[in-house]
């Protein structure tokens, strides 16, 4: 959050230094022929492909497909994980008993779970969303539960001494207290969901999406298109992060203060 603010307010042009540096290195790599130019096209070719792809080309469509899947996955994950996280977090003993399983699956590379999900949910579009949901849900669950467990004791006492019932303490205090952490979870969750969606689009068969575009451009040996799709994926990841930071900032305005 801090970083965005600073980014926006001061030294606005500094990030461009890094961007131009990167492009310069790329041009050097291109001109020096270290890598075959067919494999590494010049930056302007990739940028042109990006531009064309977004203005009239199919890239825009694929971009939206990936966005939709990522949001769907995050939504499903949130709907399942937030209530569950609250329940788990409200009792330390319950949380301890499932913590190992949650941590175990969080540590399992999601790609290794693709076969499992294919088996359970079948091969449709839904599977890509579910497997991404699964990964994101674990992250969200973990954060929500921690948010609930680490609710400031003093605020709970303050509500209790004012005569709040258990239910009101839960609703008015613990829930609000866990919100900042929940948003952190959502932000990490959406990033993870994107990663999984792209991998799934690349490797478990799809007819659209950015992962598919990378895959197809690669199969068709269309390198500028491939780099354009890679950049679109990067930009999407970056944009989602900023978007969620902004939502977080306006929604849990008190976070970190």
């Amino acid at each position: 959050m801090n970083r965005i603010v600073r980014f926006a307010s001061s030294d606005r042009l500094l990030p461009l230094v890094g961007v131009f540096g990167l492009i310069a290195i790329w041009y050097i790599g291109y001109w020096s022929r270290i890598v075959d130019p067919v494999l590494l096209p010049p930056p302007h070719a990739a940028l042109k492909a990006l531009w064309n792809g977004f203005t009239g080309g199919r890239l825009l469509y694929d971009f939206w497909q990936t966005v939709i899947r990522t949001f769907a996955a995050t939504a499903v994950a949130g709907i399942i994980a937030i209530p569950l996280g609250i329940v788990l977090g409200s009792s330390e003993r319950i949380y301890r008993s499932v913590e190992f399983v949650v941590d175990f699956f969080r540590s399992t590379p999601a790609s290794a779970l693709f076969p499992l999900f294919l088996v359970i949910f079948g091969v449709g579009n839904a599977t890509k969303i579910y497997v991404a949901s699964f990964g994101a849900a674990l992250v969200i669950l973990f954060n929500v539960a921690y948010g609930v467990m680490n609710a400031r004791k003093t605020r709970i006492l303050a509500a209790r001494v004012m005569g709040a019932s258990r239910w009101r303490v839960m609703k008015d205090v613990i829930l609000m207290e866990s919100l900042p952490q929940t948003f952190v979870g959502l932000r990490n969750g959406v990033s993870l969901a994107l990663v999984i969606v792209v991998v799934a689009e690349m490797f478990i068969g799809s007819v659209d999406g950015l992962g598919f575009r990378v895959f197809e451009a690669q199969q068709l040996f269309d390198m500028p298109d491939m780099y354009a799709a890679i950049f679109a994926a990067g930009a999407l990841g970056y944009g989602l992060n900023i978007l969620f930071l902004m939502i977080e900032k306006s929604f849990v305005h008190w976070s970190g203060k």
Partner: protein
Amino acid sequence: DKVRVGVFPVSSSLPLFVGIEKGFFKDQNIEIEATRLIGGPPNVAAMIGNQIDASSVLVTIEGMNANLKKPGVAMYISVNSQNAKYEMEQFVVRKGLTIKSLADLKGKKIMSAPGPANVSMARAALLAAGLKEGEFQLDQLDMGQHVNAMKAGTFDAGYTLEPNATMMKKLGVATTFEAGVIARTVLGNPNANAWVGGCAITTEFVKSRPEVAKRFTAGWGQAVKFINEHPDEARKYLLKNTLTPDDIVDTVPLVKFVMVSDLTQKDVADFQTFIDFSTKTGVLPEKVDVSKYLQKF
């Protein structure tokens, strides 16, 4: 009637595309509901899970393996043959290296199409050519990387599949020096028919809607007939439906499609030989009787 088909977007699925585009299925009152599924395992999983009724192309080794786990899950209605004429799998060599036969690959770095079936076939071919284990380095590599890898010179040679070989030729990065690898290695003759893949439907489909399955097969048969009669027109349909660059679509080789009902005694025997070979190399855990899994109407 709806038929749910798993589509692997490669040239071997051509009858499906032709059948749809030329309306052969529509003529049979069949509506195709296609799901794109890359590779055998998702197709097999979907067939076992009864999520699809048919797979546009299923490598026979994978199909038979599935039949070992759950008998009758993959019943072939048409099969494809690959050999020196109907090129599919082939050995290519990077431009600049002079290699004439497999025996020359001694000490070279070789890539293979991915999956145990492909790797063991490549290995068997190399061993059959007189090379010994340890005299070559064989790594499997995702198909999408084959052209890159040849271009970048990471490997000297490769056991690759179409349309990659055509693309390499077109780009001038590699040339084919041995086609019909399976036919030669397994059947002893590069021009024999190696029944490597085919269109499979599930027993569940056949049992629950026998009449629909029959019409689906009929539509498929018409498409096969059309391809065999008008190959040049048919291959146009590769363009939209498979990952074939448009500049090579006219030159990329096709496999030979044959309906199961048209197989000769010899063809079935060759088929059995091919499957037995996989059992021998350990890719298949047990022996399979091929004829049990051929579906005729």
